[in-house]
């Protein structure tokens, strides 16, 4: 499919795919704010995300082709780096871009009915404007090869995210408080990050990531670099909801509009995690991060604590969206644990889980959005008996839920398997036991919901047969079936993750 795309695309698209991917949604975002009709805004954002997806696939195809040398470098306005800003795409960010744009497209397709129901009508167009800005920001973070530019795009996405979360106020006033919290925390994270970048600039005199990476080995032992490293890791860790810096996330996810939750859970933390990986492995070398800075000693306990503690917290939640939010933090813990191994196998396992978790949580929150649309409530009690009144929505939810547990023949199983292999290879067999234990907790918190859905009588017996609308069901089932498909054949996502891990290590791609 990608070959056809590459051969049929015009020359300008191939040349400028990297900037166009970000620029199309970024330019359309302010225009949308002027559009009076919500429906037009919706169609425009669907179109914009679709265009971005096409460009992302083109970029992936170019990166995978042997003549590209594994990376695309695009100098903005022909200002050559390190002075000018460049977009640099290799297998790592190509994978993230495909993920973000795919989820973006599916999310914007399903968004219209839920946005109509949850956001005040006169704000619909503004809402889509903020969404596109957020989307463009995330794509920008994943594209740029410039550390300061990355901060800019991070803020573009974050600030629009605060807006999106706050727009949930028409459904639940607590969204305002959640958005404010998120704003404070996000700003702290961003500030930490920019302070870190400042330190690096002071030490190396450059902001281009490739350039910084080439100059750092000469600066071993520099206190400035170490301080920069610490600030960047903490700042990005906060954005990625790394335990214990995750506390903004449950509230933000449970009070924002359903569509926003779905989109953010599958993309925002993933992109921040990407940035963390980019800095840990690419800018700072793995040798620096894991051997000299003993970073394993930090990341591994943090990952395990997230896995166990947040799974426990998820078990005790009564709101489905909060269960899933805490579970998200736990899943980030798996990824961090994979990264903390510090090997290519560990990193590829972490990235593989990142891809699969995007599909899992995307499908779960999409199904929840469908329930919010038709039945309003998000408490587990409100889900009772929905298996009979909304079988299609709930079957997809169950598939994704099983994948979240890691039942064989689902994508979640495959990524836990890879993680287990990587941990065993490294001699961390005890961590495998903890992963299994955490999966057992997942059985409980997913099982509670599924039990209510399929085995309890409905609270309100007058609940009639009421499925989510078709624009929601189609993307939902695409994600649910993807969970099964990639649970059976792992070739595509595992290949992407391995290439990405290899790119992060700066090695030749290995398959």
């Amino acid at each position, binding site marked *: 499919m990608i070959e056809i795309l590459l051969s049929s695309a015009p020359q300008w698209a191939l040349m400028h795919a990297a900037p166009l991917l970000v620029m199309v949604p970024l330019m359309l975002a302010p225009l949308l704010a002027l559009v009076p009709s919500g429906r037009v805004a919706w169609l425009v954002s669907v179109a914009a995300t679709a265009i971005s997806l096409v460009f992302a696939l083109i970029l992936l195809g170019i990166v995978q082709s042997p003549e590209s040398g594994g990376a695309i470098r695009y100098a903005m306005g022909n200002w050559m780096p390190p002075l000018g800003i460049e977009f640099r795409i290799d297998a790592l960010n190509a994978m993230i871009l495909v993920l973000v744009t795919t989820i973006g497209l599916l999310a914007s397709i399903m968004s219209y009915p839920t946005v109509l129901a949850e956001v005040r009508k006169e704000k619909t167009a503004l809402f889509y404007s903020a969404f596109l800005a957020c989307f463009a920001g995330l794509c920008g973070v994943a594209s740029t090869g410039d550390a300061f530019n990355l901060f800019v795009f991070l803020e573009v996405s974050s600030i629009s995210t605060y807006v999106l979360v706050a727009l949930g106020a028409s459904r639940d006033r607590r969204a305002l408080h959640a958005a404010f*919290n998120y704003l*404070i*925390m996000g700003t*702290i*994270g961003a500030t*930490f990050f920019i302070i870190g970048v400042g330190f690096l600039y002071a030490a190396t005199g450059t902001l281009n990531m490739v350039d910084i990476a080439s100059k750092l080995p000469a600066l*071993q*032992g520099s*206190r400035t670099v*170490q*301080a920069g*490293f*610490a*600030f960047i*890791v*903490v700042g990005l*860790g*906060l954005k990625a909801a790394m335990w*214990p*810096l995750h*506390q*903004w996330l449950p*509230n933000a996810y449970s009070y924002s509009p359903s569509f926003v939750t779905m989109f953010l859970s599958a993309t925002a933390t993933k992109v921040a995690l990407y940035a963390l990986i980019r800095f840990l492995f690419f800018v700072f070398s793995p040798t620096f991060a894991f051997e*000299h*800075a*003993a*970073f394993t*000693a*930090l990341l591994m306990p943090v990952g395990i604590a997230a896995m166990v*503690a947040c799974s*426990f*917290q998820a*078990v*005790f*939640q*009564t709101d489905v969206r*909060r269960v899933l939010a805490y579970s998200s933090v736990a899943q980030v813990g798996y990824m961090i644990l994979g990264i903390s191994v510090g090997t290519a196998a560990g990193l590829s396992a972490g990235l593989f889980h990142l891809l699969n978790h995007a599909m899992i949580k995307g499908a779960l929150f999409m199904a929840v959005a469908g329930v919010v649309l038709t039945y309003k409530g998000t408490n587990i009690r409100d889900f009772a008996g929905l298996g009979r009144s909304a079988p299609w929505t709930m079957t997809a939810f169950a598939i994704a839920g099983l994948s979240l547990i890691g039942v064989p023949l689902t994508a979640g199983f495959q990524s836990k398997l890879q993680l287990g292999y990587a941990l065993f290879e490294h001699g961390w067999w005890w961590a495998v036991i903890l992963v299994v234990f955490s999966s057992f907790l997942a059985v409980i918190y997913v099982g509670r919901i599924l039990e209510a859905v399929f085995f309890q009588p409905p609270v309100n017996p007058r609940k009639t047969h009421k499925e989510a609308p078709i624009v929601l069901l189609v993307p939902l089932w695409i994600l649910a079936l993807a969970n099964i498909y990639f649970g059976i054949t792992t070739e595509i996502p595992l290949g992407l993750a391995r290439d990405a891990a290899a790119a992060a290590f700066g090695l030749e791609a290995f398959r």
Partner: protein
Amino acid sequence: MPAFLTALNPGWLLILAGVVAIFLPMRRARQGIAIAAPLIGIALLAMADQNVNHLTASVMGMDLVLYRVDGLSFVFGLAFLIAALLNAIYAWHTDDRVQDGMALAYGGAAVAAAFCGDLMTLFIFWEITAVTSVFMVLGAGTRASYFASMRYLGVQILSGVLLLAGIAYVYKDTGGISLKVFENLAEPGALLIFIAFGIKAAFPFLHNWLQDSYPKASVVGAVVLSAFTTKLAVYACARMFPGQDALIWIGAIMTCFPVFFAVLENDLRKVLAYSTNNQIGFMICAIGVGTPLALNGAVAHAFADIMFKGLLFMSMGAVLYRTGTTKASELGGLYRSMPWTTVFCLVGAVSISAMPLFSAFVTKSMILSAVAHAGLPIIWLMLMFASAGVLEHSGIKIPYFAFFGHDSGRRVKEAPFNMLLAMGMAAFICIAIGIPAIVPGLGYEWLYNLLPYREEAMSYQPFTFEHILTQMQLLVLATFAFVVLKRFGLYPPEKPGTILDTDWAYRKVGFGMAKWLGTVWGKVGPAMTAVFFGITGRAYNRIEAAFSPRGELARGGLTGAMAIWTAALLGLVLLLAFVTVG
């Protein structure tokens, strides 16, 4: 014939049909399947080439032979399939999904086990027969049958576990799991397998499960049970332990000791269970002799036994179905109201007594000849004594007390037509394989033709003057003894009661132990449960206090707490970098 049909083990077909039948609510469709499946199985078997591996598989480095027919397994497989067909006809009047399906799967597992070519597959189907057959006992639905079925299951599973252990040992020792003859019982692997077979074949002192469970099974269940489990064990012994000297004595003892119990026993189905023991003894003894003639005799006798023992259990089942009891003390004079059943029961009785012109005569005389040729006079005398005993308890006692004797006054209806049909078919087979081959290839020659050592079988003449004379002397004298004892009131009267066999060891002592342990547990158990739930409950409260939405982790001003966490983490990272790099 299409390739997949030649590779289809008839046993698998039956198991599959059984699984379908369990879920099929339509009664007649289910019973149609139960009748059609054995018929198709017989057709498949008739067309299958012998001594060819029809279906093999390789699992985890083990070469499994899933379907292989040869002269030995063919006779057993055929007998099992015919038995499955008769059982299905016999069960036509019932409406019990579980029993229908499980009976079919049970027979199928026995067939599949007979046609497998390696130990692992044998083990799998060995266990399937154990699990499916339990439902035959359980099907009676009484409290006694429930406990009997649990004891039965325990013993059967024990046999399977021993078999598996033996297979594991053999595999480790030789690296192969193909079926082969074990010469030396001193090898632990061979010994374990031998004991496993011994349990299923109900060797002396391992036999109690049989008398315990068969009489408590349902009407149909006892008929089904009588055909498969013990005969499968006989097949397995013939396959792996032919010529094993230990079997000669085991078999001979097996033929003799049940006679005493059977003569005393009041429950006629239990008499039949003892007589099963006794008949298996003949086969086991012949396998121990191990000459071609003896093995032919064992196989032929197994075939004949499946038919006449099935027939006798069917007739007792019919009596149980109509009168509600098989106690000799409560029966008698039923020939008036159940004439056909009486006739069929008599055919079974004279068959099992080895009357000339009936099936056991042509098969048992082979065994006796083989023992005589092998020069084992003591064994021969023991077998002769047991033959007289068979006539006493199965040939005379069963029909006499059930259908003649003192009139119990019961006037019941004749057995349902389907039961009569099944009994008639079994009786037909008993006679058909017992009569001389007036038409060449039919009569007993038909059965001899199928035997594993065909030339030896075809050259053997059952209807010689001395065979007939010996057998008739035996029969006449035994009958005379019965008449005399009865006349002078010396024959043990039919009295209600339980005859305690060696099973008192676990029925009384074991039960006492279990009761005592139960009392102890009743005292200690609650205390332990309290401690256990106390600990888990406290752990749960602790976890909930920490993690729940109102718990410690969620407390505190959100932003403030998190800012502090952020600072703490920053400090930690700085410290780590500082310490390790510096």
